[in-house]
């Protein structure tokens, strides 16, 4: 008997296929120096590597949140029944955050609710007071006197632990480099610190240090306090922010994955065949791109909503319905956004097809299909790579706007968009509830900024025009 049963949602399957594909691609690239070269240029970019360091925890959280299961319920007669609620591995890790629901709003590190409530005092009188939280700071006997000290102490403990871990990582990397280059560890350290190492370890260590400084105290404090407060229904905001990461990542990655085959096949075909095929494909993408993006997405999502409402029997649980909606949103975003990349690829292939090696292939009698597959596609892959990483941050931002317009993810799915949407009216409250928005802002900014910086590093490394010109213009 298993204590749980894996529940593979559609988006999970695609995410893990994507991971498998990425690993496969990495192994393939590793063995081929000409493919490895641009990546080693990325590895030499300080901002790119620092951004990658920040992205790693986001990706890990996203992957952990893509492992769904249903727990077995305790039963007496030996028959195994699984709970209807679908949870993810991240939920399991964050159980102390997920389960500690309060009644309603509470500020970060608060020990009392944010709103007054009428309660019965022990002597039978009624009074309006701020009641104690059920979980936040519940271990304190006298919160007003002890809280500041307790928070500082716990944060300090977390910080010390994080810094020690950071030192271990730094020394470990230095030792490895030292063994690799047969130098002593001190000179390796000095080289890194003065920025002379080939891979900019200094930037990586700085980024890692900043991450640890933030994460350490939060991990130490999160089981005892609501570090980012709670929202209207009393749910921990930190939990929501962490759950939002997966939604953003899934949209950013799967939408580009949907877009890719359209753009690649049609773009290469249009550029290679020219003539009426080119005209037709150009007509197709002019038509699609002439419809304002948000409206086209809105129209498609509205129609999908009607379909889901009329066929609700196809979606047995809220999680599955939300997941299907998320996937459909990715597909819609992908189908509506392939035109830009398609145009770029068509232009590049138009140039490539006149090159001598293609003419030689023609002379040898190589088939059209094979020329496109073997000779053209590999030579436009740098454009594809750049487009993939550049589009990611835009899609994460688009999700928030679309959710605000009401054509984003399912309202039951936690995402940055739904967080902002439900929190924006709280700004008008008196006193103001600011922590939900602040949390969404900080998490989104970190994710998108890191993605943008990484995308820039990838573009600089892959764009042949910039490399020939000797770096960034």
């Amino acid at each position, binding site marked *: 008997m298993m204590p749980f049963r894996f529940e593979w949602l559609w988006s999970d399957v695609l995410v893990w296929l994507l991971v498998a594909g990425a690993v496969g691609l990495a192994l393939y690239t590793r063995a081929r120096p000409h493919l490895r070269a641009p990546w080693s240029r990325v590895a030499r970019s300080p901002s790119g590597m620092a951004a990658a360091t920040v992205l790693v925890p986001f990706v890990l959280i996203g992957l952990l949140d893509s492992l769904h299961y249903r727990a077995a319920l305790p039963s007496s007669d030996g028959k195994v029944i699984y709970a209807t609620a679908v949870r993810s591995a991240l939920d399991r890790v964050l159980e102390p955050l997920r389960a500690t629901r309060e009644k309603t709003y509470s500020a970060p590190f608060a020990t009392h609710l944010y709103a007054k409530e009428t309660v019965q005092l022990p002597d039978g009188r009624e009074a309006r007071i701020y009641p104690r939280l059920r979980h936040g700071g519940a271990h304190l006997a006298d919160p007003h006197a002890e809280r500041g000290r307790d928070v500082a102490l716990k944060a300090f403990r977390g910080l010390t632990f994080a810094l020690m871990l950071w030192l271990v990582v730094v020394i470990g990397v230095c030792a490895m480099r030292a063994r690799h280059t047969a130098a002593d560890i001190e000179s390796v350290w000095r080289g890194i610190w003065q920025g002379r190492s080939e891979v900019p370890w200094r930037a990586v260590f700085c980024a890692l240090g900043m991450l640890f400084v933030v994460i350490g105290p939060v991990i130490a404090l999160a089981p005892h306090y609501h570090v980012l407060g709670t929202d209207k229904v009393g749910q921990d905001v930190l939990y929501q922010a962490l759950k939002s990461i997966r939604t953003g990542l899934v949209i950013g990655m799967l939408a580009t994955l949907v877009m890719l085959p359209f753009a690649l096949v049609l773009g290469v075909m249009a550029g290679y065949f020219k003539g009426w095929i080119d005209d037709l494909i150009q*007509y*197709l993408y*002019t*038509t*699609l*791109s*002439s*419809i*304002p993006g*948000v*409206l*086209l997405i*809105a*129209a*498609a999502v*509205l*129609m*999908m*909503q*009607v*379909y889901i*409402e*009329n066929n*609700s029997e196809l979606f047995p649980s809220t999680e599955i319905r939300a997941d299907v909606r998320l996937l459909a949103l990715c597909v819609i975003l992908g189908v509506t956004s392939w035109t830009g990349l398609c145009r770029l690829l068509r232009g590049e292939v138009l140039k490539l097809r006149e090159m001598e090696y293609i003419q030689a292939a023609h002379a040898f009698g190589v088939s059209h299909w094979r020329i496109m597959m073997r000779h053209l596609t590999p030579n436009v892959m740098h454009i594809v790579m750049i487009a993939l990483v550049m589009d990611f*941050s835009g899609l994460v*931002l688009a999700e*928030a*706007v679309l959710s*605000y*317009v*009401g*054509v984003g993810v399912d309202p039951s799915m936690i995402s*940055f968009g739904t967080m*902002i949407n439900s929190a*924006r009216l709280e*700004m008008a409250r008196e006193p103001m509830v600011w922590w939900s*928005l602040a949390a969404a*802002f900080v998490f*989104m*900014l970190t994710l*998108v*900024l890191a993605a*943008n*910086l990484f995308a*820039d590093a990838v573009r600089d490394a892959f764009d042949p025009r910039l490399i020939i*010109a000797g770096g960034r*213009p």
Partner: protein
Amino acid sequence: MTAYIIRRLIYGVFVLIGVNVLTFALFFFVNSPDDVARAQLGAKRVTPEAVEKWKRERGYHKPLFLNEKSTGIGRVTETVFFDKSVRLFAFQFGASDQGRNIGYDISTRMWPSLAVQVPAFVIGLAVYITFALLMAFFRATYIDFWGVVLCVLMMSISALFYIIGGQFIFGKLWNLVPISGYDSGFDAIKFLALPVLIGIISGIGGNARWYRTIFLEEINKDYVRTARAKGLSEVRVLFRHVLQNAMIPILTGVVVVIPLLFMGALITESFFGIPGLGSYTIDAISQQDFAIVRAMVFLGSVLYIIGLILTDISYTLVDPRVRFS
């Protein structure tokens, strides 16, 4: 030139037909009018009579493409396709699903949209180009470096946060302007100032960086080196030579969006309560009024195609080398 424009216009009409067929397929094939009616009236427990009544009130009761019951030209014209799609070409938008006249709504609501969009566009363009020129002038110095860093930081912030933050700081904290609302005539200025300002600020990151790239690409060309070799000052090189030649790539991106200014800004208008076309669209989406969404899709496409043709014309004006055959 005239022949070229006429050819582009004809192509534009074909694109519009494509848009029309595409939206019709999206709105009537993915879900039949019956499905839409049921979803609007509340899913399962709806009587067929109620569905029929809903469809009849909104003109969805006719056959989609071919009316067998009618005679003559009516076989084609008395259909949903003719009523809801073909009529759009004559800008007859018809009635919304709530029964309002869409054409009238558009003609009254485009003015507030323009009042926000045109100043934001004009001032914004000037600000972006100024910033980009400054960064290009100080290229490869710390000013340039931190300028780019600031741009990347600013383009990583969601537009929603610019609006929320702006409303909070200027509206609530400093009490300079009302948070939302609209008024007619010159009283509108105090309502418009903040949306325009935020529209400009939220675009600085992406646009200034993009124009900077264009300027730097131009600066590395041979004619600029020649100009410097002649002894021209850097300022003169930048303004007389680089700026003029960088107009072509800038025009590509800018002229296309001018007609689309009519459509308004979706989230800005809805946040600030400006009764323009953007908030009209948002309301239509949240009320699932498909007739308005269809009309706005068509209008947006028309404006985009006009923008494309204007771009082509503007090329001939700024670049004498461009001749269309």
